[in-house]
């Protein structure tokens, strides 16, 4: 078991290194001449040269990478060219906002979708099952901005129940802030519900079709006992893993939702800084998100190992 965790950790470190290199490479190379990209068309070649020198863009790539990586690890993330603020505080601030939004979405979607998937799997072709398969499928596939827009029109414009923006007025309490976040969280909920519910359904079906489910029934065990100890115990680990693995898609959804609702989260920050070539911010956002996603995947893997006796007690 310990070997398992160590192996995963090592893989994560390697992947992180690769990601860091790629992020750096993209950010530094793609815009072409950085100085020019930042100053625009009308700057003189001299100004561009000076800015490049300031930014250190004229040094060899590897040197720049090492420099950047060491600074980053130490906590010095540079300064935003656009907003003239330290990148770290900017990113942390925005990240907090995004986390709040994510938590609102996750608290709703996770229990709901796992439960729905379980019920669907246990009663194949029943009402819940039909709902999960057909509707769930559609929900996953509809882009967040589409569902967001439709929801906005219905709830904010037509019915006037929920606010149009996502950001509560300054100084509002947690409750109000959450109220403002309901609408933006819904597209995320839809997106994740479909996928998680269908996965939970699939693992539950696999359990129900397994011979040991038949054994449990033919032992004459009460239905509740079968559901908790025979079905849930075997389908939950896989479902939990799926949830944790959704982080990547969640982040993607954040970018869209934050853009649509103009919410100052890390997704919007990434988008804006990429479009405006604010290199340091782009790098910081990308790397932070990568780390978060990787940690979530690691937690998913490890929790699966813990919950599955075959992995926990590998070998006789």
């Amino acid at each position, binding site marked *: 078991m310990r070997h398992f965790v160590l192996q995963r950790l090592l893989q994560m470190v390697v992947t992180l290194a*690769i990601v860091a290199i790629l992020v750096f490479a993209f950010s530094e190379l793609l815009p072409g001449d950085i100085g020019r990209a930042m100053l625009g068309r009308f700057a003189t070649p001299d100004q561009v040269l000076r800015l490049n020198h300031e930014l250190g863009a004229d040094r060899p790539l590897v040197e720049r990478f090492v420099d950047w990586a060491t600074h980053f690890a130490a906590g010095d993330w540079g300064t935003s060219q656009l907003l003239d603020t330290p990148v770290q505080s900017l990113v942390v601030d925005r990240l907090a906002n995004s986390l709040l939004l994510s938590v609102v979405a996750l608290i709703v979607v996770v229990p709901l979708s796992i439960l729905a998937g379980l019920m669907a799997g246990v009663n194949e072709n029943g009402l819940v099952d039909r709902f999960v398969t057909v509707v769930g499928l559609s929900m996953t596939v509809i882009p967040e901005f589409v569902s967001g827009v439709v929801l906005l029109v219905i709830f904010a414009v037509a019915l006037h129940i929920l606010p149009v923006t996502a950001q509560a007025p300054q100084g509002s309490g947690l409750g109000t802030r959450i109220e403002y976040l309901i609408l933006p969280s819904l597209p995320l909920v839809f997106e994740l519900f479909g996928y998680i519910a269908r996965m939970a359904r699939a693992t539950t079906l696999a359990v129900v079709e397994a011979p040991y489910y038949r054994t449990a029934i033919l032992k004459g065990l009460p239905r509740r006992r079968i559901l908790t100890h025979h079905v849930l115990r075997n389908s939950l680990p896989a479902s939990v893993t799926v949830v944790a693995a959704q982080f990547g898609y969640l982040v993607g959804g954040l970018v869209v939702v934050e853009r649509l609702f103009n919410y100052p989260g890390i997704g919007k920050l990434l988008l804006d800084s990429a479009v405006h070539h604010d290199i340091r911010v782009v790098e910081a956002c990308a790397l932070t998100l990568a780390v978060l996603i990787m940690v979530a995947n690691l937690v998913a893997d490890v929790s699966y190992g813990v919950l599955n006796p075959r992995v926990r007690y590998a070998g006789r």
Partner: protein
Amino acid sequence: MSELLSISESSGSRSAAALYYVRILMRSRTFLVGGVVVVFWLLAAAAWPFIVPYDPQAVAPFDAFSPPNAVHWLGTDQLGRDVFSRVLAGSTSVLAIAPAATVLAVFAGSLIGLVAGYYGGIADDLLMRFVDAQLAFPGLITAVMVLGLLGPSELNMILLIAIFFTPLVARVARSSVLGEREKDYIGAARMRGERSPYVMFIEILPNITGPIVVEGTVRLGYAVFTAATLSFLGLGLQPPSPDWGRTVSEQANYLQDAPWALLGPAVALATLVVGVNLLADGLRRAVRE
């Protein structure tokens, strides 16, 4: 082991088997519904110049913000342009980008998955590292970064989407190959001295097309999803293109004044992606039989 009768037992040739598949597909309601929707949009994309009631770009300031009525079925936007026509015309971009990217991804992914699954070893490890990295960094984020930094363009979008979907197709191909590789008929082929290319393409490939086709169709749905989302984020086609994603992004500013201009392209997009996924679902069921 018992004698199972099958519809195409009598002829058993390739075409009869294909016919069998088509019969199963036709029986599936999901497949048919999805098929109808997709065909509708394909026709719209191809033939919109002939069927639009108004020129999608025609500006008519005095007609701005009119709600849906008999003249403008979906109303007009802030510039008085007919929303219905713009919706029809907007189908082209998504339907040009998404299939192109998907086809690329399927070809590349199948090849890579086939080779990695067959040979194993380093090629395989490399592929799996790639897939892991892909999971760590979802395509959308990278696309945002790259397109933002490079500048939006249709070609870049196609390439990016293709690049991100290739490992996913490869993974499906690879695991199918792994399932077939240990089977005895492969051993029998080796004992005849068959070379690797023969084994990969003549022995293994015909048996893994099913899962690849299903994955490809699913990818198509996500390609539409991704292309539209990127346009929405401003990283795709630029105005005044009636591209759906772009339009939604633009019209969001006029949410209170002309919600119909917003809903038109949004719902159109929703129907297309759902249609494609219903197709995929139907295919998946047929393949399982």
